[in-house]
């Protein structure tokens, strides 16, 4: 059973992640779903994907750059960013770039190695949905967002740095 926290609450997940996809024919086997497809797959088959009868979103791996999505970015209701390992910090920068550089307003979802002890930092970088690794205790995870009452930096959850608030 997947465990999804969205906007601070456990939420049923209506999206399916397509981890890998070789060609557009895989879509025919999955009609009418809400799919999160790999960014490369979407880039290669944009024409074929236009006709897909269902919701469509993309996920980017940590070595991909959200700047490469281009204009269609705002058409996606959801963009997922993968953590291949929790210790790979690149997706934090991608999340901030989505929110701050591109003013992306949709859902930014953390997927992959998403663990309790990183949720607070992720949320401050602009993630608002967390597809927890299967072994994580979802109730413990819900507490993670209040690990700290405030922080020094300018972030997505606190746009003013502490020195402009104290």
């Amino acid at each position: 059973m997947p465990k999804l926290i969205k906007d601070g609450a456990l939420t049923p997940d209506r999206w399916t992640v397509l981890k890998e996809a070789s060609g557009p024919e895989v879509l025919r086997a999955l009609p009418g779903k809400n799919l999160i497809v790999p960014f490369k797959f979407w880039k290669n088959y944009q024409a074929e994907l236009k006709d897909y009868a269902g919701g469509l979103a993309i996920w980017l791996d940590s070595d991909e750059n959200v700047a490469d999505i281009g204009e269609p970015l705002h058409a996606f209701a959801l963009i997922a960013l993968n953590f291949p390992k929790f210790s790979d910090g690149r997706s934090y920068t991608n999340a901030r770039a989505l929110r701050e550089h591109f003013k992306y307003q949709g859902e930014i979802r953390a997927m992959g190695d998403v663990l309790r002890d990183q949720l607070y930092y992720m949320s401050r970088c602009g993630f608002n949905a967390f597809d927890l690794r299967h072994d994580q205790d979802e109730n413990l995870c819900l507490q993670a967002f209040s690990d700290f009452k405030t922080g020094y930096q300018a972030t997505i959850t606190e746009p003013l740095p502490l020195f402009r608030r104290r």
Partner: protein
Amino acid sequence: MYRYDNYDHQMLADRVAQFRDQTNRFLSGKLEDSEFLPLRLQNGLYIQRLAPMLRIAVPYGLLSSTQLRKLAHIARYYDKGYGHFTTRQNIQFNWPQLEDVPDILAHLAEVEMHAIQTSGNCIRNTTTDQFAGVAPDELEDARPYCEIIRQWSTFHPEFAFLPRKFKIAVCGTKIDQAATQVHDIGVYLVKGPAETIGFRILAGGGLGRTPVIGQEVFKFVEKQHLLTALEAILRVYNREGRRDNKYKARIKILVKELGVAEFTTKVMAEWAVIKDSALTLTDAEIARCKSFFTDPNYADLSNEPAELTRHLQDNVLFANWYEQNVRPHKMPGYAIATVSFKETGVAPGDVTDRQLEHLAALAESYSFGEVRVSHHQNIVLADVRQDQLFTLWQALSSQSLASHNLGLLTDIICCPGGDFCALANAKSIPIAEAVQRRFSDLTELKNIGQMNLNISGCMNACGHHHVGNIGILGVDKKGEEYYQISLGGSSKNEASLGKIIGPSFAQEEIPDVVEKIVNVYKAQREPGEKFIDTYNRIGIDPFKESVYAKVD
């Protein structure tokens, strides 16, 4: 020094609670070792060869008497009665129990201290010149900017999982005492257009396996843009730094592989977006941080008071200490005194609980209740009245803290090495001691003059061997401990990296080798030449010939 307000205290309390919870989950098996690892490292906790090691942050090296007493308490109750000053101005304890660490952190929080980000792949303690604020040649005190950087980097949510560790140094003095050029980012206070003071920023310096001197990314940036400039550099590094090989993951490799021009272009593109954002420093914030580092209540005094002159004439030991360990101060009648922690027979940088308490008392009596840790692993009393230097020296002598070898060959920088560290290839403390024993004659040491010898037990270069005039590196040769020697390194303004002299040596050969090197210098030096000057003039060959000469 900087004092915490409610916000700072709250964050520290939250951190202690968070780490207590993480430790409990680890001990009860709910948190895997590999997942606990970066969490404990970002709280300064290593699992070492003999026991855990806890590294406590000393922001830019500054400690109050209250904090020193707390460290003494921790040394006594949670350790075996001593700690160790590191080459990054921190202090570490070698014998705490894992389950005690949350309590130790709670003790530290009471005195506005912590172990946050003293290890792990994140932004580490920001360091500076140990003479900041009192040096006569200073453009501006670097400490307020170190504090600004400390706050920005503490719990920075985007940069907690960088490709590798990240070290920043700030320098505001003409003579760079902070090894600024061999940091991931080196920040210099400089004069820019229209005499305004701002920053010159280098990136890509570092020691370790591939030592590199940093290159200029920002020629001049106004003060208010300091944090956005740093954030731009970090963001490019976080995104593009290599993660496939930990030995190629430091920013120096990225800057080298891209070239500094290309790297700078990327940083500028990033900076263009965030420059003038809310992260831009305000005049009010700069003024607030500066207000914690104003001058203490100096008395109106003159230089070279009669008491000092008299004692210098009467007491040769005091005069020796004065000559080696005391430096000029910006205020008339004051001096900067350095307490050497390089007593022969004691591991360089080691300090006992009692010594910490004595330092606390001495700081209160002689230096407005504050000390600084230098990256040379010594302690600085920065504001001593010249007419009180003699009584200070007497007090230090009674605690075996009056070694007068500052800046001399036996003022060795040394990592804990194979005696403690799990990463080390070889021991380093016994090497330091053997060299100190060989050069035990002060007259001879002074004859040799200013010279520094740095020892690291492995490639990670915690002992800064690359920038030692003589650098000694422990290497593993088919399971045996050997030592590679390099010459000509310097961390001063004209920073340079040492050159390896040739095949490595066994431990027992080192004192002889060092003596041969010193003898070549003594034979070849011209009047007034320091070791490094002679080396730069004559090159490595004469040293090589002497060291590897066949014995008939």
